[in-house]
């Protein structure tokens, strides 16, 4: 059989819709140039920071635990803002909902900074933090759908390369940290000693549990992605070991905040925060050793490792420090 004859035979196939029926993809997609994206993301970070600072004029200076938790919230939000702006840009913002994540993260960042600086407008800030939790939860749903919609479904390939659970999870966490900060602020303003103790305890437990849950969640995410990188550098094991141990230490401290336990948890949190800083450097090095290094940033910032991810470890550690402070306050070991 000659090839052309069989080729003709093969053409006797049902055609799909005619080509003209397909709407042409918008020619301006992707919507931004990479440089514009970086500028917009950077300005959003600065603007959110400024807004947070400006909003905080006047009012009482909040207690240390609040400031720690609020800074943790802001750091987590900043990480989510940078990460989601880039990743959703990579996804060409094909759904309007994809603008929600960076927007919510920017708002959370502003609210976090404001909370760290002043006790004013607690109701509004609580609402904003609640909003980021809701946005994060929706994000988790969207991302799950994104994974399941591809051939292979819940496969490693899709878990590696489709929308991650870590980023919307971090947004939830940022919201939780913010609410924890407000709770700590309220506790400090309690009219009676007894009420203050009760409020501190509850705020500390809540923040502590959220921190532990966040640490375990992050372990899964980091584990998955470092596994994707085949742990090609032994240092990639460091967070996979440290972060869950820190989660355990936090859990122990929440269950019974005796001094030895809180001291252990504090040391573990310190290690996790240090890893966050170190990790940012290592991820930058990782980008630099990709083909073309930072000269090829329009590819390599996306190809990773993500430089914006490790700071979230420091953010979560700040949450933990705040929780420990509140828990210790209950025992009277330390003044807040």
């Amino acid at each position, binding site marked *: 059989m000659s090839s052309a004859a*069989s080729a003709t035979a*093969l053409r006797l*196939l*049902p*055609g799909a819709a005619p080509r003209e029926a397909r709407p042409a993809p918008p020619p301006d997609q992707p919507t931004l140039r990479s440089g514009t994206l970086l500028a917009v993301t950077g300005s959003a970070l600065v603007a959110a920071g400024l807004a947070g600072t400006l909003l905080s004029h006047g009012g009482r200076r909040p207690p240390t635990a609040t400031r720690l938790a609020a800074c943790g919230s802001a750091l987590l939000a900043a990480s989510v803002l940078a990460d989601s702006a880039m990743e959703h840009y990579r996804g060409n913002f094909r759904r309007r909902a994809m603008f929600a994540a960076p927007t919510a993260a920017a708002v959370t960042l502003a609210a976090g900074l404001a909370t760290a600086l002043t006790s004013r407008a607690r109701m509004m800030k609580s609402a904003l933090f609640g909003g980021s939790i809701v946005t994060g939860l929706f994000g988790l749903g969207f991302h799950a759908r994104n994974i399941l919609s*591809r051939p292979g479904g819940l496969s*490693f390939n899709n878990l590696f390369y489709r929308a991650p659970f870590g980023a919307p999870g971090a947004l939830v966490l940022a919201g939780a940290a913010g609410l924890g900060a407000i709770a700590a602020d309220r506790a400090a303003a309690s009219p009676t000693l007894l009420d203050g103790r009760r409020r501190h305890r509850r705020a500390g437990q809540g923040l502590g549990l959220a921190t532990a849950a966040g640490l375990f969640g992050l372990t899964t995410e980091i584990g998955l992605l470092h596994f994707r990188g*085949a742990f090609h550098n032994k240092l990639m094991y460091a967070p996979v070991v440290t972060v869950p141990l820190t989660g355990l230490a936090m859990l122990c401290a929440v269950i019974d905040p005796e001094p030895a336990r809180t001291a252990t948890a504090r040391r573990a949190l310190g290690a996790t925060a240090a890893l966050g800083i170190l990790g940012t450097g290592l991820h930058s090095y990782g980008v630099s050793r*990709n083909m073309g290094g930072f000269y090829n940033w329009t590819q390599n910032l996306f190809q990773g490792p993500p430089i914006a991810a490790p700071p979230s470890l420091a953010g979560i550690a700040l949450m933990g420090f705040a929780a420990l402070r509140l828990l210790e306050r209950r025992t009277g070991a330390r003044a807040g």
Partner: protein
Amino acid sequence: MSSAVSDAQERVRATGGRAPDVFRPGAWVPMREHPESEPVDFAIVGTGCGGSVLAARLAEAGHSVVAFDAGAFYRPLEDFASDEREQEKLYWLDERISGGDDPIELGSNNSGKAVGGSTVHFQMVALRFRPEWFKSRSLLGYGHDWPVDWREMWDYYAKAEAAMRIAGPIAYPWGPRRGSYPYREHELSASALVLAKGAEALGVKWSPTPTATLSAPHGAAHPCVYRGFCKIGCATNAKQSMLVTFVPRALKAGAEIRDLAMVGRIETGADGRATGVHYHRQGAWRFQKAKNVVVAGYSIETPRLLLNSACPQHPEGLANSSGLVGKNLMVHVNDAVWGIMEEEIRWYKGPPSLAVCEHWNYTDEGKDFDGGYAFMSQGPLPTDFATSLVSNEGVFGHELRKWMGHYNHMAGLKVVGETMPQESNRVELSDETDALGLPIPKVTFSYCDNDRRLARHAENFQSEMLRAAGARSLYRTKSTAHLMGGCRMGDDPAESVVDASGRSWDIDNLFVCDGSLFPTAGGVNPSMTIVANTLRIADRIIAMGRRGEIG
């Protein structure tokens, strides 16, 4: 035509105690050199999946080794352009005559000419044989048994995959359990998703393809950037070709590589044993003395060299008492089905074959043919695609340009289908000679009925899958890929050229170690099997050396 990019083809690079450092532009690594007058332990002809791997292992075991390659020694980072025409320098474009009922296309289709061999431009599909294929005569009733056990090969596959950092799935869906691949699978490209979608619609398994390109950094090599020029040479060094894996290893272990060195003849002494090789380099014929000679020039050059080394003691060519040198040449059926997708696929991005279906390698029911086939998603570059289009369809004029205008919407599935070993498919020497005065090889190939049935089955199945994935306007192209056989290994001197160690039955210090050893072709790309088989042979030769059985 000369290259505008590099002088590697004009000037020898591995000389003067140094060889190119493939990981750094303009840099060198030290290279041990061996005098021609002193016999080296091993003179190895070829530096592809056979030669370079053997050179590395033998040198690591303390043997003195010189490996020759007719091609140039490139530094991919500075010598490889993103350009199909420029990169033709990687192919063996010397004239060869091709005949038979189904003459095979040589050159860019299956033959490399560079240090690192064809792996410099291979498509990186890193699959294992189905275990039963090593005993296809006994277990499946066709072809010939390999003189090896599949479990032994399984171990060597794992070693080969570890050495080449193969990026593959954690659980491969076919065959007996294998550990997870050393590196993780790559992100699926749109063209790979077409196969995945089609397979799920038909209810057959599919898998991300185990691929010989880095999904994470390794040493000085960058991870893959998904530029998609894999088939014409990786300028990233992510591709785990022999050039960036076993060749540097061989140099480090003290092996010498001689680039632009065409071996034309193996010399034999009065006792009929090999004494060294005649090779042409820098404009002159030279002679390297050797205690052992290993031929690793792939399925055409290996028989050509053995046949051209005929001498009074071996009038029919070396290692040819069985008369099988050059016989039983095999290819893979490489027919493809193409179609147009509604969405943009842009198959030029990423490694071209990121999804694979081995269903018909592991299923025996419902087949009207012996053997098996795998097929993969495709991503041909413009001239590659255009040449297959015009040679199969004869399309030209405005119609051709319009057809090429659909390039970004095209998707395709291409088979790697087992052909049967037939003695009539062979490599011989023609009466014509090339510029060096060496006889031009003549290749004769015809499909047998079984091959044609397999091709038809594959065509139908691939069409069905492509249609199920949503493609329309299907058409098909015919081609072949890979070379296997020509110097079969076996247990019976009358039925094979070499034994299970690659040692020729006739001459105890003459070995063959490359794809020409394959008794059967299998339905998968051959490179990993060649590497694994070479690692196995290397261990055997090293053990023989320790026992004093090597001259």
